[in-house]
Every structure is written in structure tokens, then in C-alpha cells.
């Protein structure tokens, strides 16, 4: 099952082998490429510190839980299980937060229940949108993101709605 444990070593061997065949100075090119990535990485760190502080405090203040409580009736109305709501709210914001929330949901309800399955599909079918947007634009000088958030959130909301729809369709 764990096919990913083969991919990385094979990929590395392939790159080095092709490098030798094409007469690339594999060591010096590696060092050059790594150095460039290091400079890109250091450029991101300030944005990372700013956003992780904002996200951490938002979670710690209890505001996230309060918002969950407010949205619960609307979610139930469209057939979305309220137990999976905190995951929908944290999913776009924090990857580790989503993992922690998913873990809590599976502890509270069975993974084979409707809410447990919807949460599982959401976890597998969406990404940490705001984190990705922040980190990716952090690698550039972009401050005006135009319709990035609109497009990404459309994708997330579609994923949340369809997680409930597909679980109903495929597993009931």
C-alpha cells in the first residue's frame, strides 16, 4: 500500500543517473540549486511568522469555536453534518489545525458514521488554502492578490458541499 516509500528514492536515483548520462556536474549543480532555494526560503520566514501568529491567536481566543456555533444551523439545513463543521472552518487556514480537528472528530464520532466519512473526504479532497496562498505569494513581491482568494475559496466550498453529496451517493 505504501507506494510513496518507493517514489522518492527512485526519483532521486533517476535524476542522478540522467545527470551522469547528460554529463552534468551533479555535485556543483546540487549546491547551486540548494543555495538558491535557501535564499527563497529565508525570504518567506517573516510572512510565516506573521501568519502563524495570527492563526495561533485566532484559535486560542476561542473565536473559531464561536463561529462554528453560529454556522451550525445553516450547515444542517444543507445536509452537512454539524460535527464536521470545525474541520471545514479550520481546513483552509491551518494544516496542523485541520489534522488536530480531524483527529478529534474521529474520536467523537465513528470514522464509518456519516459525519466521520464526510470529514474524511474533506480531509482528502482539500488543502490548506490560506497557508498555501500566503507562502506562495510570500516567495514573490506580490501584495495585490486579485481574485486568488475568490477562486481558491470557491474550490474549497465546492469540496465541502460535494464531500457530503458524494458520501450520500457512494456510501449509503
Amino acid at each position, binding site marked *: 500500500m505504501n507506494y510513496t516509500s518507493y517514489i522518492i528514492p527512485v526519483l532521486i536515483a533517476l535524476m542522478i543517473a540522467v545527470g551522469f548520462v547528460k554529463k552534468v556536474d551533479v555535485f556543483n*549543480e546540487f549546491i547551486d540549486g540548494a543555495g538558491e532555494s535557501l535564499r527563497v526560503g529565508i525570504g518567506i520566514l517573516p510572512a510565516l511568522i506573521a501568519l502563524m501568529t495570527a492563526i495561533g491567536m485566532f484559535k486560542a481566543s476561542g473565536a473559531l469555536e464561536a463561529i462554528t456555533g453560529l454556522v451550525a444551523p445553516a450547515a444542517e439545513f444543507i445536509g452537512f453534518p454539524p460535527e464536521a463543521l470545525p474541520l471545514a472552518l479550520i481546513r483552509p487556514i491551518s494544516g496542523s489545525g485541520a489534522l488536530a480537528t480531524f483527529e478529534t472528530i474521529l474520536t467523537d464520532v465513528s470514522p464509518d458514521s456519516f459525519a466521520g466519512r464526510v470529514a474524511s473526504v474533506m480531509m482528502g479532497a482539500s488543502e490548506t488554502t490560506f497557508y498555501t496562498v500566503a507562502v506562495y505569494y510570500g516567495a514573490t513581491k506580490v501584495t495585490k492578490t486579485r481574485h486568488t482568494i475568490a477562486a481558491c475559496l470557491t474550490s474549497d466550498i465546492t469540496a465541502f458541499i460535494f464531500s457530503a453529496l458524494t458520501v450520500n451517493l457512494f456510501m449509503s
Partner: protein
Amino acid sequence: MMKWVFGLMLLLSVIFGLVTGNAAPLTESALNSCVEAVELFLYLIGGMCMWGGLMRIAEKAGLTTALAKIFRPLFKFLFPGLDPSSKAYGLICMNVAANVLGLGNAATPIGLNAMHELEIEGQKRGLDGTVASRHMIVFIVLNTASITLIPQTAATLRLKHGSLSPFDIFPAVIVTSVIALAAGLLVALIFNAADKRKAGA
């Protein structure tokens, strides 16, 4: 945009936390989150450099160009006007390939280099560097939607909590991912087309 996300989140957190008596966790979080950010940076930077180094070898050996050929038909539609022989194009293809295979830690560093290259492409065309280009927006949508073939984290945690069939979510995950990605790309491309018409008029 980011100034509002950042500023309002902090203000709301402090007001809400103080009103509800959560001052202690709020303080702890204010002092600790920056440490977590540095830990995350340290966690990511090794992989970024390692993949940056390997990508440089692959690039010099022509492997990126070979992979770019596989994605060319689809990406020509998603990234109109981007030179298929550019560094950015090759990195985008590698990033998507890594995402599809579920190599998140490999995809992110490649993706960040791709953003950097897209910025350089924008400069060549005389675009304002502080404004997101249409290529950047489509690329970010590709990365904020999950295009992973096998949702391993979800299945592993389901197994841990005693699911009788931890993998039965796969069909639902694939259908949901594809529809969600299509919806995001549609919005990005419609806005891109509208902006282009406005700029062209």
C-alpha cells in the same frame, strides 16, 4: 488582501479572547506561534534546499523539459501566453506531478521556485511585480485544491480509529477533488478573461 486577513484576525482574536476570558491561552499563543513558525521553517528549509539541488540537476539534464511535454496540452489551456520552454513552465509541471503523487513536501519547494520564476516572467512582460499575474493565480488554485491520487493521511487516521473500511472514501475523494478543482479553475479563468478584456479595451 493579506493586510486585512492578518490585521483583522489579530484584532478579532484579542477582542474575543479578552471578552471570553481566554487571555491566558491568547498570551501563550502570541508568544509561541512565532517559535512554531521558525520550527516550521527549519522543518521545510532542508527539503527545499534538497529538492532545489536535485531540481537543478534534473533541469541541467533536460528531465524537466521531458516532463513538461506530458502536461503541455492541458497547461497550454490553463497558462495561455506562458513560454513552454521557460523555467517556470517546467517547475509548474514538476510541482503538479509531485502533488499528484502525494509528495507534498517535495511539491511546496518546487512550487515556491515556480512562483519566483513566474515573477521573473512577469517582469519580462513589463508587469507590475506587486500585482498577482493570471498565471500565478491559476497556479495557486492548482496547489490549494487537492489533486492527490491517494488520500493517505485520512485513510491512516481512519484505520487508527477502528474504521472497518478505511479506504472506502477513495471514490468520493477523487470525485470531490476533481469537481472542486474544476470549480476553482473556472472562477480563476473567468476572472482572468474579464480582466484581460478590461485591459485590452
